[in-house]
């Protein structure tokens, strides 16, 4: 009685899509090399050659003898290594996730049709797109929130605050209450920083955490999972026991300890979460890889004499990709939440404008200036919600019968 | 034997208005079951009539999706409502089941009217022992102690041919083979000493030898308990083995109904003939099945539902309603315009089939 579904995305033989032949490099790879390698080189350059104090692009301009041109273009950024990694991850995302959707239009359309029916998921996608675009482009248009001690605790537009809490009211004062203005549409913090600007800069960090951590988790998890699945025997056993141990760590406690000892910058946070967060993914990938390798077409390839690496690389990974993506989408909220929790506990770099930091910084003023907590808090809440809805929707779209939770 | 009790029947008897012999055990009239779906209203069973008498076995045959399962499940309203809606009358021992409350219905289900299903694997809850499930069936209808219920359950298991029944009573379903599971399902159906057994493709999931055993068991039980059986199958071979009367369904409509001999000897409806041609041992030329597809159930075509796939279809076949049931022989009804006035019925008769079937069917019986 099973309804006939079109060929699954899962079972597309990517060889056909990406130009067959063993030694040819796919267009995706080419694009990644063209865009990603310069970014990585820039990262190495930044790390080894550029001094702490120098702005990377200014130095680059000098080194290339193009200072004047750079200046004219306004290229004076000083990206951190996290920023550079973020750009690289975005390229990876573009060439290996977005581009395949375009290359395989028919499937995309089918899934879009399925996906569209889930209205919360569509709204979630829109929200996440806003966060993404805001996070990538926002910092170029909105300056880092500046301190202005005399504009502390300004209420959001249409809001008001008891005069005793503000040093100086930017808007009007009526009935002893300071009224909000459009100058600070979402109000200001104790330091007079614009909450709107903080939220926009928080988007960047949110996306950085989401993308980079996920990339690290995916890289380790997929490698570990597939190797384990394919090695089999005692190698598999040992690797999976290792995963058991990784998963048994009381994570928050450990993060606290490590971040406390080694400092809790954003980069450290991402690293720690990346390195400890892949256990579940590895297990998941392994089980998927095992089941895919039981599929007829993989068996056929095996019989035809293809090497293990080739099977894994060409068949197993691509064909488990969609389930892995789903699984990854569903672990992102965990990272965001963890960041916010650590920020709340005071472990974290207060100079990095994350939403968690914003919540943490405003919590003492919550009873009279609730916007400082509420605005970033709601942004965080909605983003976590959106990732969940999105993950569920992708799951449903890819496989209507699939269960929402990952199995043991 | 312990099975012979009928304590629970009293509930029904009180409601039983007419109990004269000339009333059929089950009398279905104008049964219509539809479902609300995203694509619109899906009519799975469309205005059908049939009867089942005590001790009689009626088979409903048809392709998958023809509505036969829905028809049986509509009898005791197993269909989920909503999204389903059931219309028409279903008289059981003269009492219209449609008038009963859900509670009254529950006292009939599993007691007076029992069901067995296609897939014994799935039809039992894998988390409970078979004994628990049988005991549950007993205790729902009768206020008996666990011990008594267990004794009865073991008896029943024994009766349906499970070896070492008392030891296996506490085993889980997955510890039994498919055939054994279906036996257990039958045992479970028998707990209330039912008057009517609705068997929905009970043998389809089983292999051929086991299938035969189960059919034999059902036959034996029917003789012993004198119950009526409404048996759904798509397998004409099974029909030949077990049926007294046959109802052929297609796309929610009854195409033809007749005595089992009659229908095999003189299949009147082109659809019935097409089904028979699919039987391998009958020299059928349509082993791959009947060409074409079932019509869209949410938007059935005008006229005869089968017209689109019928080699004899004319323009008249595709207008109006499904043709009326025309009695072409005693108790043999066909819904085909060729049997109506002004048509030549011989066009649709299939002499070859009739010739092939007549002696063999006889032999089989």
């Amino acid at each position, binding site marked *: 009685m099973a309804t006939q579904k079109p060929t699954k995305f899962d079972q597309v033989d990517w060889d056909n899509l990406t130009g067959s032949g063993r030694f040819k490099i796919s267009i995706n790879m080419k694009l990644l090399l063209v865009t990603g390698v310069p970014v990585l080189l820039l990262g190495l350059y930044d790390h080894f050659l550029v001094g702490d104090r120098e702005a990377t692009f200014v130095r680059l301009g000098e080194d290339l003898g193009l200072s004047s041109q750079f200046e004219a273009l306004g290229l004076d950024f000083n990206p951190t290594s996290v920023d550079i990694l973020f750009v690289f991850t975005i390229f990876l995302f573009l060439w290996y996730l977005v581009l395949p959707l375009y290359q395989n239009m028919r499937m995309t359309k089918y899934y879009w049709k399925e996906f569209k029916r889930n209205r919360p998921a569509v709204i979630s996608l829109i929200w996440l797109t806003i966060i993404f675009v805001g996070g990538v482009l926002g910092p170029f248009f909105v300056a880092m929130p500046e301190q202005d001690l005399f504009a502390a605790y300004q209420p959001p537009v249409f809001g008001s605050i008891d005069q005793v809490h503000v040093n100086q009211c930017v808007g009007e004062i009526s009935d002893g209450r300071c009224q909000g203005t459009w100058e600070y549409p979402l109000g200001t913090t104790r330091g007079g920083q614009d909450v709107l600007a903080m939220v926009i800069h928080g988007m960047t960090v949110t996306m950085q955490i989401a993308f980079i951590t996920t990339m690290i988790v995916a890289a380790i998890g997929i490698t570990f999972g597939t190797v384990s699945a394919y090695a089999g025997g005692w190698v598999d056993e040992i690797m999976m026991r290792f995963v058991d141990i990784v998963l048994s760590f009381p994570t928050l406690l450990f993060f606290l300890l490590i971040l*406390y000892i080694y400092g809790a910058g954003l980069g450290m946070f991402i690293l720690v979460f990346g390195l400890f967060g892949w256990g579940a993914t590895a297990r998941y990938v392994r089980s998927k890889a095992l089941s895919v390798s039981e599929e007829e077409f993989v068996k056929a390839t095996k019989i035809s004499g293809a090497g293990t690496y080739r099977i894994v690389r060409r068949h197993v990974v691509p064909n488990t990709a969609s389930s892995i993506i789903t699984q990854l989408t569903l672990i992102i909220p965990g990272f965001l939440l963890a960041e916010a929790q650590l920020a709340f506990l005071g472990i974290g770099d*207060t100079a990095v404008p994350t939403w968690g930091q914003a919540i943490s910084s405003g919590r003492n003023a919550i009873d009279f200036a609730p916007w400082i907590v509420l605005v970033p808090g709601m942004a965080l809440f909605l983003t976590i919600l959106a990732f969940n809805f999105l993950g569920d929707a992708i799951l449903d779209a890819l496989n209507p019968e699939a269960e929402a939770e990952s199995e043991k | 034997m312990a099975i012979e009790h009928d304590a629970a029947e009293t509930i029904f008897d009180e409601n039983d208005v007419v109990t004269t012999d000339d009333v059929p055990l089950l009398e279905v009239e104008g049964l219509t079951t539809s479902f609300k779906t995203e694509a619109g209203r899906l009519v799975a069973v469309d205005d059908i009539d049939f009867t089942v008498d005590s001790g009689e076995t009626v088979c409903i045959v048809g392709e998958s999706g023809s509505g036969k399962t829905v028809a049986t499940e509509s009898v005791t309203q197993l269909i989920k409502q909503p999204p389903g809606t059931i219309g028409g009358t279903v008289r059981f021992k003269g009492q219209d089941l449609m008038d009963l409350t859900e509670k009254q219905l529950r006292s009939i289900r599993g007691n007076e009217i029992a069901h067995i299903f296609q897939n014994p694997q799935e039809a039992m809850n894998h988390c409970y022992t078979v004994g628990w499930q049988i005991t549950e069936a007993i205790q729902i209808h009768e206020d008996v102690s666990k011990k008594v219920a267990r004794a009865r359950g073991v008896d029943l298991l024994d009766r349906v041919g499970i070896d070492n029944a008392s030891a296996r009573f506490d085993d889980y379903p997955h510890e039994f083979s498919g055939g054994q599971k279906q036996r257990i399902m039958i045992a479970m159906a028998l707990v209330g000493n039912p008057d009517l057994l609705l068997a929905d493709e009970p043998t389809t999931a089983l292999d051929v030898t086991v299938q035969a055993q189960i059919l034999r068991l059902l036959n034996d039980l029917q003789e012993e308990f004198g119950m009526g059986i409404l048996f759904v199958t798509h397998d004409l071979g099974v029909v030949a083995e077990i049926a007294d009367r046959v109802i052929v369904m297609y796309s929610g409509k009854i195409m033809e109904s007749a005595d089992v001999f009659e229908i095999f000897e003189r299949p009147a409806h082109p659809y019935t003939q097409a089904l028979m041609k699919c039987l391998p041992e009958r020299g059928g030329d349509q082993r791959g099945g009947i060409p074409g597809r079932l019509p869209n159930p949410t938007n059935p075509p005008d006229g005869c539902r089968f017209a689109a796939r019928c080699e004899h279809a004319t323009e008249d076949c595709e207008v109006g309603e499904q043709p009326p049931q025309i009695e072409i022989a005693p108790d043999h009804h066909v819904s085909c315009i060729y049997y109506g006035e002004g048509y030549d019925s011989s066009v649709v008769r299939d002499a070859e089939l009739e010739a092939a079937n007549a002696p063999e069917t006889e032999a089989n019986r």
Partner: protein
Amino acid sequence: MPRRISSKGNHASGINRREWLGMLGVGSTMALAGCLGGDDDDDDGDGDDDGEDAPEAGADEPDPLDLSQDPPEVSGEYHATQASSFDTINPIYNTEAGAGTAIGYALDQGYTFDFDNEVVPLLFEDIYTEDEGETWVIEFRDNLEFSDPYGQYTAEDYVYYVQEIHQSDTFPSANSPDWAGVEIEQTGELEAVATPPNPNIIWPETFAPLEYPIPKELLEPYVDAEDSEGLQQDEELLDLSFNGNLGPYNLEEWIRDGGTQYSRNDEYYLRDLADEYPMFGEAPYFETAQIEIIEEESSRIAAIETGETDNVPLPPDRGEQFIEDEDTMVVLEPTPFNTILSVNMRDNGWTAGPGNLFRVKEFRQALAAAIDKFEYIEGIANGFADPHYTWQPEFSEWFPGTDDLTLWGNPEEGVYGEEARDLVEEALDQIDEDYSYDGDVLVGPDDNQVELEIYYNAASDTQELAVDFYNNQLEQNIGITLDTNAIDGTTFSENYWSADPEGGTDTIDGEEVEWDAPTPNNPGPRSVTPDEEWDMATIFGLNTYPRNPLTNDVFFEGPNSSYNPVGYYPEFDAEGIIQNMRNAGTRDELRDAAAELFANLNEEQPYIMISFGDDIEAYNPAVRGPVPEFSNGWDFPAWHKDE
């Protein structure tokens, strides 16, 4: 162990050095903002006329208790709230202010100071010197009883405790340095004589003689067994059950992380002073007392709002709200802790280029002049602080008065803005390196703007605001920018603030100077540096020792000072002045010497001095006793609630 004088609240008044030092730990140096008592000219910060409706700092100024009145009714509970929990309440090992308060509810010490900074004897009948501080006589009251079986508290217990614990090598105790070189001798059942290593006319003000009463019999077994671990873990010391009549309350339970609960001590010895202070006649006046730990600031504040507690310390930005709130009483208590900007004069300071401008006095003056103290006080301390010009708060009797001081960073009456720029120019003339102004920007030899690394405590909101503020001010007034770095207090202390003591010699003003007793916080000359480079920091505020200014020798004696992480070399005769202070035979002599020291420190700005913060304490208005004084709480046993 804490010589807590006052016994209340979470604030720092009467706090001793060690308790305060406990605060140097992780993230606890926040909230060092505040100002002098509201009884001074409240809002001298209104200088820069920004038109802000500045808080009038109209904090409540309840009258002190009149101890000659009759005893009030005993009633209800006194419930105080603190922000952080205690490590231990073992009186021998405690170093924290909060725990000091908790112990103080159950155990009194020798004496305390009243609002006039006069010694008020408690367990001691008297403490006096008859030979200009050469020897000090301590007399004990004779109505002091430990719980059974320990009997009366006598000079024997006191001397035994000092000699066998603090002066012994076996038992690491925080008080040992105080007793190093002190000879103590029991001269009668209730009398002991102490001889400090140098004559000291204000020995009681050093808090050194303050010890909690500990029964000799309790200590003996541990002393005999040399079991310091056992002493730390002794149950009686941890539940203070030996307190007898020696404290106003009996400790019922210490719930770790939760706080302490007390019941009234019906036999409190201070009642016998009813002749002198009638109000102590029935003391104390609460049936029960409780110190509750609430770590979350908003919950802590909510507790006073909803009336669940009688006392909560407030952050500066909440002060105004509660001052206006009729249902709370806000009392501003001056503290001896300053808000400073430390600048690294060691070789690993000044990372902006060659040289180290911090070593030039004029440059430090320029920094002090470039930061508008009043804007800091208004904007960050919300008005609850006073400007800090020299190493002593204004309430101190040793404060030399502002007439002879240069008022750095005071736009109205002092040196600020343009003048700061002039000072930098002066400083630039004194160095060889090629720093100069390019327009309003100070550029280094590499033609880049001077950018300095500033570190602040990641756990402190106030410091986070402050560093941004400093950055704005310095950029605006002297054309340098700051790169702000949040850091954990411990990490900073470990890697930036201290180094392995190496010692060594350096030539200062043509004189060879030797570091013969290096410490981690003064590990040697400027060439001896901690592991990590840093330029500026706001992590630590320091005590200015307003009761005993002599103690400040730890900071400013150059090579001999034990605490000099920034590598400061005095350009005046600090050693000479300090020696004069030590030799002073009278308070007046001491005052003159101190004035000289503080005038010089004002010029030198060894640390860039910003402000003195107030502790802002919110009370249940029914509580009688709290007053906006440094010594607030010395009369805690007489505190009570109005019906």
